């Protein structure tokens, strides 16, 4: 389970966010990450361009075969081609990853700005509410919602979004407050600019900046959460191709058929790493321009 950076750090300390000061300096990593992510997106959008078979075709005679020229990633217990399933699995992972993050961010912006810009009462109310939600660990919150609504893609998106929204909201609030108290907002007030002008021209753009990085890394984390839920049997129903579910299914054979676990796992890990590398690179570039 990828650690929820936003939730922990912002909740408890304003000090040490893992800024990319000591970040990854070499460029090849960034290029590789970008290329890999593009590939995954391509898999999600046009899977048929990458494989001629269907992820649902079973062939009992070809069950549990090691990777070969015919089956690049080998086959699973029902004889389905793992490569094809990995390619088709990209869609649901990306859907949930991007969808959940987008949903969480929208909620976070609403709550964060309300708290940051509102008066003491609004801020107090929203902050207390966020603190309460943050006390419930994200994954568990997601689990609760799955328990309530039953498994399914839409539920997963909602559950993962709810689990991560509070952390993002807390960060947005922190940013909005920091900007509101900044020297340039004071200077703008001293110039006689109206509040709405200051919000539109200064507060919003500056508060949103770090969110870009957060969103990027958040997608990676959402993908992991989604596949974790599937791994636990709480996600997308079989026989739909989904990376986490594939890992769950292959667990029983892990000692003999390593390819069942390796390739879906690599897909997930690859996405997470690529997204983290890109996120840190973005962070370095944004900070380099501003600080």
């Amino acid at each position, binding site marked *: 389970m990828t650690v929820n950076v936003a939730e922990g750090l912002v909740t408890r300390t304003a000090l040490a966010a893992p800024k990319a000061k000591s970040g990854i300096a070499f460029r090849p990593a960034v290029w590789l990450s970008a290329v890999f992510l593009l590939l995954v997106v391509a898999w999600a959008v046009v899977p048929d361009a990458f494989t001629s078979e269907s992820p649902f075709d079973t062939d009992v005679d070809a069950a549990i075969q090691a990777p070969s020229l015919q089956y690049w990633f080998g086959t699973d217990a029902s004889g389905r081609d793992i490569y094809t399933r990995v390619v088709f699995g990209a869609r649901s992972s990306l859907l949930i990853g991007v969808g959940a993050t987008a949903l969480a961010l929208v909620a976070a912006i609403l709550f964060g700005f309300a708290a940051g810009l509102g008066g003491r009462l609004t801020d107090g109310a929203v902050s207390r509410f966020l603190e309460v939600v943050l006390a419930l660990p994200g994954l568990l919150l997601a689990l609760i919602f799955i328990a309530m609504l039953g498994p399914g893609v839409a539920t997963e998106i909602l559950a993962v979004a709810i689990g991560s929204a509070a952390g993002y909201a807390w960060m947005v609030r922190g940013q909005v407050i920091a900007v509101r108290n*900044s*020297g*340039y907002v*004071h*200077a*703008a*007030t*001293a*110039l*006689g*600019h*109206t509040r709405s002008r200051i919000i539109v*021209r*200064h507060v919003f*753009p*500056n508060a949103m900046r770090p969110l870009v990085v957060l969103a990027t890394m958040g997608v990676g984390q959402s993908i992991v959460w989604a596949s974790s839920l599937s791994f636990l049997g709480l996600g997308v129903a079989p026989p739909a191709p989904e990376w986490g579910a594939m890992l769950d299914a292959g667990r029983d054979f892990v000692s003999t058929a390593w390819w069942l676990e390796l390739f879906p796992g690599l897909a997930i890990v690859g996405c997470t790493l690529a997204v983290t590398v890109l996120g840190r690179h973005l962070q370095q570039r944004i900070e380099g*321009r*501003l600080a």
Partner: protein
Amino acid sequence: MTAPLVRVEDLTVAFGAGNEPVVGGVSFEVAPGECFAIVGESGSGKSVTARTLLGLAGAGARVDATTLELHGKSVLGNRDRDWRQIRGREIGFVLQDALVSLDPLRTVGREIAETLRLHRYGSRSKRRERVLELLTSVGVPEPELRARQLPHELSGGQRQRALIASAIALDPPLLIADEPTTALDVTIQAQILDLLAAMKDRGSGLILISHDLSVVSRLADRVAVMRDGLLVEQGPVADVLTAPSHPYTRTLLDAIPAAHRKGTRLSATALPPTDPALIRPPSDDLLLEANNLVKRFRGPDGVERTAVADVSFSIGVGETLGIVGESGSGKTTTAQLALALLEPDEGTVQLGGTVWSEATEAARRPRRRQISVIYQDPLGSFDPRWTVRRIVEDAVPAELYPDGAARRQRAARLLVDVGLAEEHLDRRPLLLSGGQRQRVAIARALAPEPSLIVCDEPVSALDVTIQAQVLDLLADLQERLGLSYLFISHDLGVIHHVADRVLVMREGRVVETGTAAEIFGAPRDPYTRQLLASLPLAEPEPVSGGPA
């Protein structure tokens, strides 16, 4: 003739291969019992020179010299192990700002004892005794209590004394002090300088690094002036400061705002002709009137502090009111109240004869054009994403220049008026120097065509030559445009130079008020007198004279 403590000949320090040396060809000597000062602005290489004497020039430094001797022994080839014997025992090092120069997570006593422990001084109880002895000798009261506390629990002056104690723990014959009083209030600064002078009298050698010539004149016997890594001049203090031979030293001395420089330019810059639109006609009216202002704050621990108590003042057209005080005196809060960015708990402020502090923000907004502000750190007051052009354009009032193109033109004109070039327009302030940033801030402050500009420590963060240029700019603008200033500073020399009338503040109260001549020539209040007495000696009139 006693052997010199330090002998340096042709010292060169460079970082990285092929880079310009940070220190080039520096030579000097320091005798026991004398104070040798190295003076220069930022980037001059004075700190690096001092640290090289400890082997702490920095990672990747290449040190080269004909002679580099301490106590007659060459230290050129020293390895870290050899240096560790010398540091602390033969040389003590004092940095500025004990708040960050002492480990904030360790008690004061342990920091001092560390020197003793590293050089194997006695047993633990003997070390404890010595720590208390040292704290007493540097003048820290209640040493048993203080030794057990963390640095932030001591006052600024006590902290600096403790830092000095840790440096002299083993009674080294040489002490190097790098800007030891820069972070301190002027009264505390005087006490620390007295302490260092006493140590010098006892026979220690002292190398003092400073950008502040007045501090140097108080303490040093001989002084060297550095610029861009080169040592341009050195000699006895009296000679260098009264009859400097190098033009840079002369520029440096001329740039210092002080009594005899009032009314004259500090730098050699000139200003282009001004835009007549900005000129304010002379008048007898009062621009700003503050009456019995009171402002209280509630601290994080719940205790209420009175930041400003019963402060009244007025500013007329074309005049400069200076507010001077040490930290915690309430001068910045007063500025915020004058700008109506803070609401006073009691008292009123009137701008141009009409209500200001008591009006609603909506009523104030259109009138905010009349009063502008510049800060100590202009960078913090700029939106980090904006270019210089956008920053200034944003301040040009739409009522006066409704057309976008007209605003752009106006912004460009303003930047030229403050002495910046067109090429700076499209840069981000991050890429400009401190002086240039402050000019951008001034341009922005001029854009709404105000009558009054509040200047909150506008030159405190600048090198003295740059400070001179900015002060000259402000003076020029005042003369040509009839502007008024509310000028806030902790630097008495600056206030004396710029202000017509002066307000002396202490702990939120006005202690004394009068014209600059009255305050600085014949102060009545004991605190004002103490402030002025704490000033290191002003240097005597330079023979060369400056640009008039």
